[in-house]
């Protein structure tokens, strides 16, 4: 039941962000799907007792890979799909907790939350970076293979 709940809400949230960022009309569904799949991976991993930082890394990786595929198929810049996919993973809630504890003079707890926020933001960066690197490597290997075929 919770999974179904999460599927529906994350799809609407990601597609809604597509509207706020003025994504092309025919890309909204794909935006929603990319966001939904990335979020569900994160959600399931966290539910199976994985720490939120590695879960964010894996989800960001998946989002980036899916966005690359969509960008290839629809011949549009990758940013259109990756933005709405990444946003559910942005540690907004954690940043909020940090801010709130700063205001309530609980600095120890606030710093703890801030450190977590930085780790999560770094996790998103690593996830995006990994798929970027993988994409470049695959492209280069593909070129090499086609060159070798020409020679032989």
């Amino acid at each position, binding site marked *: 039941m919770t999974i179904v*709940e*999460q599927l529906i*809400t*994350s799809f*609407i*949230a990601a597609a*809604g*962000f*597509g*509207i*706020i*960022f*003025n*994504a*092309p009309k025919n*890309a909204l569904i794909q935006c929603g799907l990319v966001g939904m799949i990335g*979020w569900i991976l994160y*959600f399931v991993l966290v539910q199976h007792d994985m720490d939120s930082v590695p879960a964010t890394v894996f989800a960001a990786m998946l989002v980036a890979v899916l966005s690359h595929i969509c960008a290839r198929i629809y*011949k*549009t*810049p990758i*940013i*259109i799909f*990756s*933005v709405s996919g*990444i*946003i*559910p993973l*942005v540690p*907004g*809630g954690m*940043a*909020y*907790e*940090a*801010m*709130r504890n*700063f*205001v*309530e003079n609980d600095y120890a707890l606030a710093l703890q939350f801030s450190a977590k926020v930085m780790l999560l*933001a770094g996790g*998103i*960066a690593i996830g*995006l*970076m990994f798929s*970027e690197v993988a994409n470049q490597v695959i492209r280069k290997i593909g070129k090499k293979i086609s060159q070798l075929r020409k020679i032989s």
Partner: protein
Amino acid sequence: MNNSNEIAKVCMLAGKIMLECSAETYRVEDTMDRIARAYGVKNPQSYATPTGINFAIDRAEQANFMRIAKRTTDLYKIAEVNSISRRIAAGELTIQAAIDHLHQLDSHSFFYSKRLQVLAAALVSGCFTIMFGGIWADFIPALVAGGIGFIGLLAFERLVEIKFIAEFFASFIIGIIAVFFIQTGLGVELDKIIIGAVMPLVPGLHITNAVRDLMAGHLIAGVSKGVEALLTALAIGAGIAIVFAFV
């Protein structure tokens, strides 16, 4: 090359539109170089930052400069410029036709209607409350708070020039509405309502762009976008914090 002035114009116009729509800086430079190469320029030199473009048709040639004053988020225009540059690279567009196409794109605002945007922001807020472990009783309060907060953002953006102030006031409004829902007993968890309602303001685009620019080696652009994201986050946090200070 006798038409180098026109080529520079096409490249800079494309770059300007992309930067104004918050595209990644490395993509902007890449697009400008591709367009220039398609028109036969051998060594185009482009340098873009979030606030300005430099472009020269060759090494040690005179450089053209353009200032980017205002930046919004518009994925549609980024995709359109991309498809125009693809057509240029395929040799389908003459220089004059490209300038006309880009001018047309620049002057049109293709935004979804404001009403639809507010509706989307409201739905996003409600959904995020559920995604972050909230209960369905808080769906409507978050929906209302997020929607009104987004209206506030749009209104303040018209009133004040500084974007961060508008974000600050929007999150302040969200905080007040959320507290109001709790006080009247309509909402249950204050934290979940506020987190959900604040999400449409979160600078997710700038964070991803900053990361991608840094990875592509555009250190200045990446750092400045990261600072922009940080300032936005601080503005949102400060708006909520003020509400907490009085509750």
